[in-house]
């Protein structure tokens, strides 16, 4: 008797067998694939007239994405990696908006950008159509967070808060020095950032006993500040307060120094060119200049470690780097708590965020209408080719020199 077995292959059986085999062999792979990468749109002006700032922002953001992925991705999402989609706004509003649209097609979960306030305003408005969270890493205008858009979050303080902090510090300095400054001229770039900051400054300076004698607006780029220096000299204010982007900031400071305009102090709020490069390359020009700006917490080990990494790569540790880095970390934290890249859940997680911005001298994160209430700026002064923090007192590294010595 022959032993024969008929093997019957039914369709259902094949399906079940395949499923079992895949279950045994392929499930981990399928599980890995399920933790799909979370796409993050990172938009900066890496070309155009503020390209340097944009490139610095991109550097910080991509380093953070790399760090999140190296640390195992978003654990609550099965180790999902962050995938950075890099966009260039070309320093133009319309290009920033088209990057948002393009990245929306690619399925981004959130955006980070845009350095320039006008680009950030338009780009975040475009992202609002899709209810996609938009994290402003750098962008000074308070319009960014006062339009009632639920998708916009800004970790850093806006120019309103920076102006308040800067004015208070300037008032305290002036008071302590016996009030040598009674008048100021404000020189600002003519865009949303410079004009907005200048108006706020002019309105608030009287509260510390300083009168804003004149507001001088200039275009970007400006070829020559000789006449501005001439007007300042004829006006003879005690202070010049600047609010401009990098190139014009440096050119104006250089012109005022070259023309030996005597002032009690040169002060800026969110001065675009006040950084290590300026202070080290033009130490005589920068000496005693003061700026209210975003600054890392010098007492944070993580900030110091990141500074070393950035400098080892040949770049400068400017505010764009650590603000973009912190914004990506804020997003990663929200993704962990949301456990999903779903836009509504992610927005809710951001709204209730208590993220610890370890690199910055901030208090606990708390968003009110998209603006973090825990953010604060620092007041710095260029002293002997270096940047020292002169306020707030808990992070200060040097005592301010005010008024500055006159030209001989």
């Amino acid at each position, binding site marked *: 008797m022959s032993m024969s077995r008929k093997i019957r292959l039914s369709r259902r059986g094949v399906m079940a067998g395949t499923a079992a085999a895949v279950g045994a062999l392929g499930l981990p792979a399928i599980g890995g694939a399920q933790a799909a990468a979370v796409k993050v749109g990172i938009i900066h002006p890496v*070309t155009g007239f503020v390209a340097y700032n944009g490139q610095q922002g991109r550097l910080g953001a991509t380093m953070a994405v790399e760090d999140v992925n190296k640390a195992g991705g978003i654990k609550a999402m099965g180790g999902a990696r962050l995938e950075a989609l890099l966009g260039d706004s070309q320093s133009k509003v319309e290009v920033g908006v088209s990057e948002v649209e393009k990245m929306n097609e690619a399925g981004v979960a959130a955006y980070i950008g845009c350095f320039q306030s006008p680009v950030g305003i338009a780009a975040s408005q475009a992202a609002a159509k899709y209810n996609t969270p938009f994290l402003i890493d750098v962008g000074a205008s308070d319009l960014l967070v006062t339009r009632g858009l639920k998708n916009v979050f800004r970790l850093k303080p806006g120019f309103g808060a920076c102006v308040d902090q800067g004015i208070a510090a300037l008032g305290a300095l002036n008071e302590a020095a016996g009030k040598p400054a009674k008048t100021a001229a404000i020189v600002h770039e003519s865009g949303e950032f410079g004009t907005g900051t200048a108006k706020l400054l002019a309105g608030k300076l009287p509260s510390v006993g300083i009168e804003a004698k004149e507001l001088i607006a200039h275009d970007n*780029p400006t070829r020559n500040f*000789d006449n501005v220096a001439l007007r300042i000299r004829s006006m003879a204010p005690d202070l010049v307060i600047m609010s401009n982007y990098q190139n014009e900031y440096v050119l104006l400071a250089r012109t005022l120094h070259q*023309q030996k305009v005597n002032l009690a102090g040169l002060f800026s709020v969110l001065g675009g060119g006040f950084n290590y490069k300026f202070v080290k390359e033009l130490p005589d020009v920068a000496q005693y200049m003061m700026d209210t700006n975003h600054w890392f917490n010098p007492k944070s080990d993580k900030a110091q470690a990141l500074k070393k990494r950035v400098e080892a790569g040949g770049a400068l540790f400017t505010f764009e780097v650590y603000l973009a880095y912190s914004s990506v970390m804020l997003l990663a934290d929200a993704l962990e708590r949301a456990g999903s890249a779903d836009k509504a859940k992610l927005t809710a997680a951001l709204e209730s965020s208590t993220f610890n911005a370890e690199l910055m001298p901030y208090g606990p994160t708390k968003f009110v209408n998209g603006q973090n209430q825990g953010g604060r700026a620092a007041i710095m002064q260029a002293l002997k080719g270096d940047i020292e923090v002169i306020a707030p007192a808990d992070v200060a590294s040097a005592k301010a020199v005010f008024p500055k010595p006159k030209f001989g």
Partner: protein
Amino acid sequence: MLDPAIIFAGVLNGLLAGGIYVLVAVGLTLIYGVLHIINFAHGSLLMLAMYAVFFLWRLLGIDPYVALPIVIAGSFAFGYVLYRGLIGRLSHGRDENILLITLGLAIVFDNVALLLFTGDSQTIDVAYAGTIVQVGAAFLPLPKIISFLAAIALCGVLGVVMARSQLGKAIRAVARERQGARLVGIDVEHVFAIAYGIGIACLGAAACLLMPTFYVSPTSGHAFVLIAFTTVVLGGMGSFVGAAAGGLIIGITESLGGLLLGEQLGQIGISLIFILILLLRPTGLFGVGR
């Protein structure tokens, strides 16, 4: 009402600013005014020359004024090769092709500079940058006085070369009647390339004279291009005296406009003068109609 001393100082500041415009425009008046090449790469080539000055100073410690002959010679060679190798070859003698090629070159140069040097701006810190000459209420930086005098001298030299030398005659002949020049034995392509090279050499000089008081970034050349085109049209196409006069008029107008109307509205004066010149004297101040 402003103090007359301040207005006088404003005029002097305007003259010095105009000197810079003359420097940038003088090369353009040769390329655009004489050869009728609309050189969209003018600003980008200025930027490259400024980087050359910057790196000569940074890497080899060569002062921008000492670098003048090196950068002028290098810029001439670069301009000559650029014309012979690319612009002349690809344009097939058609003006609209030249326009597109120079526009393309500008985009390439800007982005290569961005890639190699990043968008960061670079400055040169020389001891004499802070040296000031006081004239009344005006505090005039020495580097700007030097660049002003150099601009006037350069215009004079180029004017004489164009009027008196064999090369000048050849350039004028080629500009007037290309075919005729070829028939009398002039190597038209060579003369075009030399003229283009001289125009770029002028940018090299401008870069050396600008850097002690200005910065360089991949977009810094563009700040001067529109002004340079305006200067050339205002002064008269191909006229070196016109370029000098045009640059100085624009400098003074911009300066006084800025003082009286504010920095932003001050620019309106330039446009108004430009429109008036086009209405009343379309050939420009020193231009000759054909």
